[in-house]
Structures are given as structure tokens and as C-alpha cells.
């Protein structure tokens, strides 16, 4: 760490690190973002309305679900319920990051909450779990906001480009695997010890077994089981 942790040089180096991490994640998100935008753009909703889910919901799975259900004429209550269940993992991400964010002022935490998304959580959690805890509270905030703003901007741009390219992207360009591969690459860096493997293996297998549950509840059931197993393994092996 720099000898002047509050200096501009250290802050710049934190921002630079955040920029590098963001670019790598944004490039890896490109196929998923474009494919999702193209799907939104080819729905029965007006393209701008479908794209408005990017700034409103900021989460591909919930955006896709909401737009598909609305296109199919589902009732508003069902659409809201289903999309909120898909996005309920944000509650968990917020809880996981909260101890690292406690020293930030309320204003920045309210803004940070809006920017919270899967890749932002993944990058921030990886950095904050480093031996130095990701540096001072100010440096953690700088990193989080830098990554959050960069990935938010990239997501709006990618999905916007996808909406514009709807119908132009060749259907032979199979992008179905982009989302699961992207999430796999967010998952791999979190596997740092035995208990985290236990949490992931349990979470994945239980989610598959529970994938028949309505409203996408299988994700939450799998996540709950994985968290429980990870916690038990930590208790046993420290």
C-alpha cells in the first residue's frame, strides 16, 4: 500500500484498478448484453420501453422475465412478483457488502445501492476480501463507485446496442450460452476455500433440483441451501 493512503496517487491507483477490472468484466458481458438487448428489442413492447428496464431494473434476468411476461399479456401483479423474486438476490448481495460499506456516508450508500448488480458485487466482494480489506473506507468507496458507474454505463450501452441490432444480429450467432458462461466466470473467483466450494456445489445442485418451482424460486432455494452448507463447513474447519 502507498505510504500516503489519503493522497491523490493512491486514489488514482484504486480507480485505475477499478477501471481495469471493469473493462475485463464489461468485455466478458458483451455477448450477453447484446443478446439480451436484441431479445428486448424484438419483444411486443415498444423498443424504448423494453430498453427502459436497463436503467430501471439493472439486471438481465429480471429484465428478460419482465419484458417477456408483459409481451405475453401477463397481469401486472404476476410480472412484479416474478421480477422481484428474480432480483431478491440483491438483498443478499447488499447484506454481504454491508459491513464493508458501513463507514461510507448515507448519501454514497444510497447511490451505491442503485449501482449494485451481479458483477459489481462479484468484483467488490473479491477486492474487499483481500488481506488488507480493500484499503481504507474511502478507497473501498472509490473502487465500488468506479466499478459500479463503469459497469452501469456499459450495461445501458450494450443493451441499447442490442435493441438497435435486433433483427440484424444473425440468428445463427448462438448467444444462448453467453449468460451462463459469464456468471460462471463471476463464480470462479469466489471459490477461494473449501467452504466456498461446498456452498457453490450445494447451491448449484439444489437450484437444478428445485428448477421446477414456480416464479424462479429455485434460485433462492438453491442459494439458501448453499449458504447453509458453506456456513456449516466453516464452523467445522474454520
Amino acid at each position, binding site marked *: 500500500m502507498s505510504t500516503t493512503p489519503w493522497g491523490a496517487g493512491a486514489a488514482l491507483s484504486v480507480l485505475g484498478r477499478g477501471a481495469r477490472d471493469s473493462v*475485463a468484466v464489461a468485455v*466478458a458481458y458483451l*455477448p450477453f448484453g447484446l443478446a439480451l438487448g436484441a431479445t428486448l428489442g424484438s419483444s411486443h413492447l415498444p423498443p424504448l420501453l423494453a430498453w427502459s428496464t436497463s436503467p*430501471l431494473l439493472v*439486471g438481465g434476468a*429480471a429484465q428478460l422475465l*419482465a419484458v417477456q411476461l*408483459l409481451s405475453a399479456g401477463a397481469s*401486472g401483479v404476476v410480472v*412484479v412478483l416474478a*421480477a*422481484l423474486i428474480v*432480483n431478491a*438476490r*440483491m*438483498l443478499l*448481495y*447488499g*447484506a*454481504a457488502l*454491508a*459491513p464493508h460499506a458501513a463507514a*461510507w456516508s*448515507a448519501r454514497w*450508500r*444510497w447511490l451505491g*445501492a*442503485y449501482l449494485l448488480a*451481479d458483477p459489481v458485487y462479484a468484483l467488490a466482494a473479491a477486492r474487499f*476480501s483481500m488481506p488488507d480489506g480493500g484499503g481504507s473506507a474511502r478507497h473501498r468507496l472509490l473502487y465500488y463507485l468506479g466499478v459500479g458507474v463503469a459497469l452501469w454505463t456499459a450495461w445501458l450501452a450494450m443493451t441499447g446496442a442490442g435493441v438497435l441490432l435486433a433483427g440484424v444480429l444473425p440468428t445463427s450467432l*448462438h448467444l*444462448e*450460452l*453467453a449468460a*451462463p*458462461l459469464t*456468471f*460462471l*466466470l*463471476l*463464480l*470462479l473467483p*469466489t471459490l477461494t476455500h473449501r*467452504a*466456498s466450494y461446498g456452498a457453490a*456445489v450445494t*447451491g*448449484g*445442485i439444489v*437450484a*437444478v433440483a428445485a*428448477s421446477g418451482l414456480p416464479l424462479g424460486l*429455485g*434460485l433462492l432455494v438453491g*442459494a439458501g*441451501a*448453499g*449458504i447453509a452448507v*458453506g456456513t456449516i463447513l*466453516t464452523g467445522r474447519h474454520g
Partner: protein
Amino acid sequence: MGELLTLVVIGVGTYAMRAAFLVTARRQPPALVARLLPHIGPAVLAAITLPALIAPRGSVAVADTVPALLAAAIAAVMWRRTKNLPVALFGGMALWWLASWALSTL
């Protein structure tokens, strides 16, 4: 307008969930909670990834599932070797495209 209203309600609800714990954050969460928190990432991300990997087009089918798992294995190996997300992602996608093309020409 009804559709926009529905989307705004989801947006507000999602924002409330994002903010709930982050805004009420405490430096020292209760001991049990503190023990749960490190496992949220691996558990949630795996619960998203695995069902989508084994059914990339919505249902489990050998022609989809086998190439998807191969692509995932390649992406994982490439990430372990290079620690480079784009390289791993496009390596996995390339294998998926190759396998999809091979299966469609059989």
C-alpha cells in the same frame, strides 16, 4: 402506460432490496450473520449458473447440454490459466459455437 408503471414498480422494489442492508449497514453484524455472509457469493452465483448451463435453451437436451458443459470446462480452465475474463469467456463461446456448428452439420 400500464406497462411502464409495472416496470417502475419493479424498479422501485428492486432498489429497495438493493438498499435495505447496504443503507442500514453496521460495521459488526451479529455473529451468526457474519458467518453466513461469505457464502452468499458462491451459493447465489452457482444457483444461477448451473441450471442455465445444463439447459442453455430452456430444457435439458444432449445436443445442448454436452456442448455447454464442455464450453464451461474450457472457460474454467482458461480462466485458471490466464485469470483473464474476456479470454476465458470467448474461449468458452468459441467451443460452444464450434460444437453447435458441428451438430447442425451432422
